[in-house]
């Protein structure tokens, strides 16, 4: 519900209406405001108004010591904290040249994939709600709670973990957590099938999703889309496979791709990603090596002057950290590439020509987290 | 309905009718006018009930008070630009007023002259079922023609409301 003052009843020569979806609308997943101009029900133009969550993560990063960076990254893309932490840790490790013990690598992959499923589940539930199927939100929350339990047992927090650090991870898996993971894996595939039957199998929803919000291969690349949004358009690019980090070079997983790039494809790609992520979790839990989880590091990290870019595949796409070090305890420039920012640009291109009723669904289908968009 | 028409009820309904019509004409906003109109329609439905025309009363509500009013309001909504604008009078409305007033006076005179030729409330009339039998029996022909009229209006409405391909 946006405030009345921001809502104008504008009458232009063509009789168009200007709408604000957001800045506080449940379907915008936080704070994204779309100024939508409509002609009747049809959207003529859409402009994203950002800045409602601009809180200076990049600026604050210049005043944080290197091992404090993960706390900021956690709160950037708050739905997938592990990936943010991992990207910053990778960048620092690359700058400083730190060897990470193999077990840490595997734990990073393990937790990362669990977090990926949790994040997708959050998307899945809200997407169902955008579509108007209220029950689905609760069913996906049921699985998300199981995942959050695992994450809490391992890291101590439900969302902002501060678990992955430069040099490794802070703690090993506990016995409780491991049994929880195994219990989760036993039921997850069946649950996912149930979700897919419930939401994706619904003919009315299929009718609404197919052919809506199409982004073809070329414009997807031109718009800089990454992750599931890109793969739905038929580009099989995945950082985990093409630039392996953590333990992904030793893991087997498939990369689902779509064909048409419509909302249905984006939906299906994410579902399949969850399945593959569960597969990775299974491999990780089976193949977890023994050993330390943290490299020996000095108390204060002072990388040499230099610059680096490290990226991971977050649930929303390529999450990269661009770090410029000047030799002091804090970075000179800390920048991170937010995949959602590019998804918003895609949204601006996708919306015109569709109906207002589809706007919420399309916003849901590209999976945006404003926290990372505005940094 | 009872044999005699209840005076106070009639007075209220008549007042509602006429007041609503005046309200509609004096409204400076089309939305208000439309709402007044539907009020008049409801009041007239009440008068129909007084006249033992139960079926007509229901149809009056169904067609005039709701469906037509909804469509009218819908049109007002679609022609948004004039939404809040006051209803503009024609440049010179005295002539219209005089003509309408004259009509009213003549009608009044006529009614006063001969209106009560038929004043006794007759026996209880037949009910809705009888009306149905009449409609589908004796008056089938106009019924069929009315169906054609509805078809024509459908064709016409579709013809005008479809986008013109340029």
């Amino acid at each position, binding site marked *: 519900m946006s405030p009345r003052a921001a809502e104008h009843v504008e009458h232009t020569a063509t009789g168009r209406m200007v709408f604000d979806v957001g800045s506080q609308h449940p379907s915008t997943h936080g704070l994204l405001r779309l100024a939508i101009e409509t002609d009747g029900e049809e959207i003529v133009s859409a402009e994203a108004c950002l800045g409602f969550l601009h809180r200076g993560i990049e600026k604050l990063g210049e005043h944080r010591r290197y091992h404090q960076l993960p706390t900021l990254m956690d709160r950037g893309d708050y739905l997938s904290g592990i990936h943010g932490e991992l990207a910053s840790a990778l960048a620092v490790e690359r700058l400083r040249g730190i060897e990470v013990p193999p077990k840490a690598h595997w734990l990073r992959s393990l937790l990362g994939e669990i977090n990926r499923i949790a994040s997708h589940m959050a998307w899945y539930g809200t997407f169902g709600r955008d579509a108007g199927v209220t029950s689905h939100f609760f069913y996906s929350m049921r699985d998300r709670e199981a995942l959050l339990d695992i994450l809490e047992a391992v890291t101590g927090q439900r969302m902002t973990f501060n678990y992955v650090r430069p040099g490794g991870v802070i703690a090993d898996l506990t016995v409780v957590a491991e049994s929880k993971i195994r219990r989760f894996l036993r039921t997850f595939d069946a649950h996912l099938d149930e979700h897919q039957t419930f939401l994706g199998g619904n003919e009315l929803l299929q009718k609404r999703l197919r052919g809506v919000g199409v982004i073809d291969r070329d414009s997807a690349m031109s718009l800089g889309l990454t992750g599931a949004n890109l793969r739905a358009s038929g580009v099989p690019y995945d950082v985990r496979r093409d630039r392996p980090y953590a333990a992904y070079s030793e893991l087997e997983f498939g990369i689902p791709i779509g064909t048409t790039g419509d909302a249905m494809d984006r939906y299906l790609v994410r579902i399949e990603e969850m399945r593959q992520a569960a597969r990775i979790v299974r491999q990780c839990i089976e193949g977890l090596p023994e050993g330390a989880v943290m490299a020996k590091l000095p108390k204060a990290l002072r990388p040499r002057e230099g610059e680096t870019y490290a990226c991971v595949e977050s649930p929303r796409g390529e999450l990269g950290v661009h770090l410029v070090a000047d030799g002091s305890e804090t970075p000179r420039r800390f920048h991170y590439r937010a995949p959602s920012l590019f998804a918003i640009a895609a949204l601006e291109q996708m919306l015109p020509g569709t109906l207002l009723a589809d706007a919420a669904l399309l916003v849901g289908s590209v999976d945006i987290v404003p926290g990372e968009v505005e940094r | 309905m009872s044999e005699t028409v209840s005076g106070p009820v009639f007075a209220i309904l008549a007042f509602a009718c006429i007041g609503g019509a*005046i309200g*509609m004409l004096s409204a400076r906003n089309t939305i208000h*006018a439309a709402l007044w109109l539907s009020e008049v329609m409801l009041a007239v439905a009440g008068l129909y009930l007084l*006249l033992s025309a139960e079926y007509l009363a229901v149809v009056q509500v169904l*067609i*005039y008070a709701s469906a037509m009013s909804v469509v009218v309001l819908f049109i007002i909504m679609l022609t948004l630009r004039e939404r809040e604008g006051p209803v*503009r009078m024609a440049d010179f409305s005295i002539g219209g007023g005089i003509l309408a007033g004259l009509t009213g006076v003549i009608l*009044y005179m006529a*009614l006063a002259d001969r209106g009560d030729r038929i004043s006794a409330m007759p026996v209880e009339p037949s009910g809705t079922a009888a009306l149905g039998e009449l409609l589908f029996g004796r008056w089938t022909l106009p019924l069929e023609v009315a169906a054609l009229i509805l078809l024509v209006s459908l064709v016409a409405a579709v013809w005008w409301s479809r986008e013109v391909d340029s």
Partner: protein
Amino acid sequence: MAVGPSAFMGVAAVLFSLGLYGVLTRKNAVMVLMSLELMTVAACLNMVTVSRFVTPAEMTGQVFAVFAMAVFAAQIGIGLALVLAVYRQTGSIELSSKKAT
């Protein structure tokens, strides 16, 4: 207190006159259509009154009123479609050649 037919017909006459006034003086097409509805209702009321008082058994007036309602509903429907078509082209719903009568 008995109410005779002339009372009902009087109400109808007032409605009719008011509707006529509206048709003659308003420039807004929707207002004109609404005034026409008012006149229609007046005519229907007249018929129902007569039906009740003159031909209670045959109910001819009620039949007539049913047809009048159907026909005028169709007419108003056409009229609104036309108003909309005109509005789309010109952006105005005022009657162009409305002269004071």
